């Protein structure tokens, strides 16, 4: 359970770690859109090279990113099989008895795999180089225009930051309860359905009880320190755009423009 890599912050010092979270979020959005523009292999080659370059600049290890992709493997395999069974256009490449594999099916699957890999790389690049707290600040600032529509952006940001703050604590707690119940002979893998249900309950019920306890304590602690929902607060941390931030946003948007251009050219 302690090996979760997806979405984890890696404390290093790099150009990307020092960027403003807002510029990183905006750049990520632009790149994600760019990935979904049908540009063919040339487009993917360009984005792919840039993304891998970015990962290297961020000092993250490539195999760390690949580890983050592992959970997706089964899903991709499943997608591949469905594509092969459903898509029947293009040249016939292989045929075993009733199963015929057409070129379009393979190419479509490869497209999806490449896109997904790039998506994961881009999002990991954001989450691994941005402290959860900074991410919340960034999200809060970017959502600020919604305040006019009576969306409680501050409360949302507070909720996100508390959730992020307590994730490690709760993972530790879950680990302890899991071990405590394992010591009482709970076996999540074997046994009948009824036994499995009671095994799962033996984990969930204590987690709930403990979460409520923590929430109670936390509410008291926050109130005692003068927190009032919806009241005016002064913010300690403010974000500031630096030169690099403008560069990143501009580069990302140029890239997005380029992809759109390639796609338009291709469709002609």
């Amino acid at each position, binding site marked *: 359970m302690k090996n979760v890599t997806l979405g984890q912050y890696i404390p290093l010092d790099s150009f990307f770690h020092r960027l403003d979270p807002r510029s990183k979020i905006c750049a990520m959005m632009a790149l994600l859109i760019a990935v979904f523009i049908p540009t063919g292999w040339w487009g993917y080659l360009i984005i792919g090279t840039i993304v891998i370059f970015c990962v290297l600049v961020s000092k993250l290890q490539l195999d760390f990113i690949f580890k983050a992709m592992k959970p997706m493997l089964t899903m991709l395999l499943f997608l591949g099989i469905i594509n092969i069974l459903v898509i029947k256009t293009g040249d016939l490449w292989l045929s075993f008895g009733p199963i015929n594999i057409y070129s379009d099916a393979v190419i479509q699957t490869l497209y999806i795999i490449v896109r997904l890999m790039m998506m994961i790389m881009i999002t990991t690049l954001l989450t691994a180089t941005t402290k959860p707290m900074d991410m919340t600040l960034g999200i809060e600032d970017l959502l600020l225009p919604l305040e006019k529509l009576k969306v409680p952006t501050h409360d949302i940001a507070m909720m996100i930051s508390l959730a992020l703050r307590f994730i490690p604590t709760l993972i530790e707690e879950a680990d*302890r309860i899991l*071990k*405590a*119940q394992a010591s009482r*002979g709970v076996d999540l893998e074997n046994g009948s359905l009824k036994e499995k249900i009671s095994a799962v309950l033996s984990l969930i019920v204590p987690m709930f*009880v403990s979460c409520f306890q923590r929430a109670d304590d936390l509410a008291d602690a926050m109130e005692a320190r003068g927190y009032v929902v919806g009241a005016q607060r002064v913010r300690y941390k403010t974000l500031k755009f630096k030169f690099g931030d403008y560069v990143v946003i501009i580069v990302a948007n140029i890239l997005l423009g380029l992809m759109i251009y390639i796609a338009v050219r291709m469709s002609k």
Partner: protein
Amino acid sequence: MSIRFEKVDYEYSPNTPFAFQALKEIDLELSLGKITAIIGATGSGKTTMVQHLNALLLPTAGKVTVQDFEIEANKRFTQVKALRQKVGLVFQFAEYQLFEETLIKDVAFGPKNFGVAEHEAEEIAKSCLRTVGIDELDYEKSPLELSGGQKRRVAIAGILAMSPEILVLDEPTAGLDPQGAKQMMDLFKKLNSEKKITILIVTHNMEHVLDYCDEVVVLDHGKVLMQTDINTFFENDEYMEKANINPPSIIRLKNLLKKNGISISKDVVTIDGMVKELTKRLKK
């Protein structure tokens, strides 16, 4: 028959940026039938070490032997269930593991997992609840209705219900009031002397170590710093200094008296004994 650690290493999250070696070449032999205290500063590896005893953690190097069970690094250990029945592990803040609607059902949960029939499991549960001193009127109550100390007793009953031969307790008295803590320690003493259960206690409370334990193991930064019987430990200042502990009050008093020129015999560690010796000195 004993519990043995041979060159045991344990590393959390190996091969990641968060890798942390919690145990380093632990060599240790514990004889059965005793009450052993495992002490050491926070982060010295006490909890990690005891979780090897029922195969919740498997060594990353070395070998752990518990009676006839052998748990070796890089080898599949297949008798997990049998081992967990023999070694009962009570976690810190054990009250958080209660989840059933009634105390009886919760205590019976363990034995049922090990294949004991429902009716029989409930009989065992009743007798274990009695052992830990829960009132019979409360058996059908929900765990949520009990006080913190009572809940912890129920959790301990839940482990006793599997009739373990070795009972491992990770800071069983943390957060209890002094009286509650004392009752808890008395219970362990009783289990040890009446049911001959081997008891290992991870603790920070030196008064408890002095009053209840036979042997002490000191861990420091994932290594065994020393292993000795209680009397030797508390008779030698250099041992306590090395283990970096706060000596129990009576030992502190003894040392302070000695500094002021009044020495008390080595083996006297009770208030009555010391008072007797002091007053005898006056009569001379």
